[in-house]
């Protein structure tokens, strides 16, 4: 067992974990933060994306022990302090960027990371950035629209509707 200490959504947490405990499992089973989903075993689907020290990572492909000392942010930490949806989350609702909701936490975390790096991404940049997040429901149309809208661009015009 290894002792890990990290900050998750602004709260300090500390626990003894096995070496093999993945960050995704630590969040879900250890902390009850089940918004982070696990959709594959090969680091492809992106449902488990969280931010570690401000960067998007696949939490199913990082050991909890390797996140010792890190600042971790999950989907549960994305809402505004008053509980309302943040700009990215609200854009997903406004533009119907989700259906079953399973890929959504990872999609939101990746989109937020993109916007932090690139506040006004083009459609092509968004599509390229989201290649590590698989959605089976939306055909991606409304996800890309939502990210355009969250960046303050005219999503409807850019989606040529």
């Amino acid at each position, binding site marked *: 067992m290894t002792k890990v200490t990290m900050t998750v959504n602004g709260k300090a947490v500390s626990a003894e974990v096995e070496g*093999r405990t993945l960050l995704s499992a630590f969040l*879900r*089973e250890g902390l*009850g*933060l*089940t*918004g*982070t*989903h*696990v*959709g*594959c*075993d*090969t680091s*492809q*689907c992106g*449902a488990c994306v969280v931010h570690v020290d401000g960067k998007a990572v696949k939490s199913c492909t990082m050991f909890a022990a390797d996140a010792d000392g890190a600042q971790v942010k*999950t*989907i*549960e930490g*994305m*809402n505004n302090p008053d509980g309302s*949806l943040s700009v990215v*989350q609200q854009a*997903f*609702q*406004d533009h*119907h960027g*989700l*259906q*079953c*909701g*399973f*890929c*959504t*936490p990872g999609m*939101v975390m990746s989109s937020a990371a993109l916007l932090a790096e690139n506040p006004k991404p083009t*459609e*092509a940049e*968004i*599509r*390229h950035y*989201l*290649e590590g*997040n*698989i*959605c*089976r*429901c*939306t*055909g*991606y*149309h*409304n*996800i*890309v*629209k939502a990210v355009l809208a969250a960046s303050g661009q005219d999503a409807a015009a850019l*989606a*040529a*509707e």
Partner: protein
Amino acid sequence: MPKDHGIGASSKRREDVRFLSGRGVYTDDMALHGQTYAVFVRSNVAHGRIKSIDTSAASKMPGVLAIFTGEDFKDVGGNPAGWLINSRDGTPMREPKRPVLAHGKVRHVGDAYAAVVAETYNQAKDAAQQLADDSDIEELPAIVDMKKAVADSSNRVHDEIPDNLCFDWGWIEDNRAAVDAAFKSAPHVTTLELVNNRLVPNAMEPRSSIGEYNPGTGDYKLTTTSQNPHLTRLLVAAFVLGIPENKLTVVAPDVGGGFGSKIYHYGEEALVLAASRKLGRPVRWTAERTESFLTDAHGRDHVTKIEMASTKDGEILAIRTETLANVGAYLSNFSTATPTFLHGTLMAGPYKVPHVYVNVKTVFTNTAPVDAYRGAGRPEATFSIERIVDKMCRELNLDPFEVRRKNLIQPDQFPYTTPVGLVYDTGNYQATLDKLIELADVKNFDKRAAASKAKGKLRGMGLSTWIEACGIAPSNLVGVLGSRVGLYDAATVRVNATGNISVMTGAHSHGQGHETVFAQIVAEKLGIPESSVEIVHGDTSKIPFGMGSYGSRSLAVCGAAMTKAVDKIIAKGKKIAAHMLEAAEGDITFEDGKFSVAGTDKAKTFGEIAFSAYVPHNYPLETLEPGLEETAFYDPANFTYPAGAYLCEVEVDPETGKVDIASFTCADDFGHVMNPMIVEGQVHGGVGQGIGQALLENTSYDENGQLLTASYMDYAMPRADDVPFYTVDHSCVTPCTHNPLGVKGCGEAGAIGSPPAVVNAVIDALHRGGHTHVKHIDMPVSPARVWSAING
């Protein structure tokens, strides 16, 4: 000005708030006191005889609580097929038992033959590996190729089925002679052999189940990833475990997509219940993604020869097909209906074809079971028809738009009876084709093609005009066709004493947005805010009954049941209002949430009537029961027939064979649209999956029955950069004539109409680029296949 609430408004989805905040509750998110973990031991050979399973070492491993093998379930029932199909000679299909755990033989890679339950997941996993090491399974030759399977009776998936054939179905057998005669005298015959590629549905949430047995009451609860909790309850209770239906609750909480794969009952659900009964503790299981690839019911997998008889100017005279349809190792619940009544009955498409004959042989192989996947049978029919129409146009040098226009059923011909047993109630296929040509800017295609050429790319355009039968549906009809269940649906509308409303629906929402759309409909009908209506679904203990969500049926069938229940509420409300307003019931009108006496200003609000029903101080108690709650079951008179026209433009890189979707345009007729935003989202998703089938997705077994595409490393899922923005339109409306909302269903359209449009576009691009020797490329039209076709 678009509506901002009620029917026809693009109301934002209420369910999104929880999903976007990480507060959705999917099965695997639930933590239960005292929970234990099940892990399955799965065959790593495609076909084998189980000689022995030595449980002694595994059972002594740390944390192990119980071990189950096929032996434990040999005396309980099997998971049944939902449809009985007869062969052409009248004999019933072969229906081998599908046990909870394989017994005697394993029949596909991933076939579970044992399970371990332990205190922790890792302990169960360790013991499962030990058990696999301690199992002696004699490998037998694998049966993978369908043609070989039916030709070689010495090698059998099921020992009692000599030719590996489930049935040999003819539709419609009596028409066969006339069809053959039409071909004999036809001026032109086009022939095409094609494969409709096997797909893995890949809902992003892997299957997951939790069994809970309460030793105090003898009640069972199954929480599971299901599109169809009542059917699962029926199958587990009545067919598999023999639990009284009233002692079993099935809950399908938030479910992360289904696309067909979660309609069915799977053995893991029975196992966690049986294990929980044995241990008196909750038992949970969640699939790893590779387990999903190996064991979720796959889709499609047809090998078809289609022939089309026509005049030299493209009038279709007859269609004849022979299909081998793979059902895999066992019959999944709908697997016999998919290649037959959801496929053969659509083989006339939207066209005036006088003669059609369809032959389907379903074949057992040592592969995962195959069942309905988004579209189910109708994409296979549409692909065959739309590909051969295109090939006919090329052979006769005819314009594909004009040939389709000429053959489409005319608007004044409805209701239209097809030669394959359906009656299309309504439609206007010319209208959607015209709309498509306008939206896709077909007239400027040559300019775009020239621009592509300047970049070294070949541009092509592909058309598909398609129809589907949805709202699966009328019990009397499906009963004739072999269904062992009814296909109605049910809803309860409960008006609470304070006037707000709970609606319990048999339809299950796993991405479709029922919680929003159904509330819009009820709110509109009752003249109350949407926020006053709550939709409850996915719990057999709360809902009267339901047949679940698939086949684009939720709104057309369950929505209709809900509408009927609301009508009953209004009818009862009028009785109460008549009493309170001292007027005749016939004089009461209901509008904008108010019951009024016609021609007067006397009125009661909906809330006042609801209050009166629950506080019946001034109430006609001698003639009317208190309370305001109504249930309706609805069984439609027919399928619904959404239809549309799709156009895809592609750019092909001739040096690498890579196909890029340049644009994709859809003109659909879904009847009345309840929430345009959601309808458009459904089409986007369907088209995305159709593009996936056409260009990317390939389920490949090697000759030993090993699944080569068992993870996202090899199974190519469409990603954001594989697809464009789509142009979708649903402004052409011919309302369904037989359900109260006039709706047709939109969930499967995109997946049905798009694959042939993509492939037709690729062939078009290659022909325009001078590669006229390429007649067909099987899906997925991968870069390597396109390059080989060009250079072959």
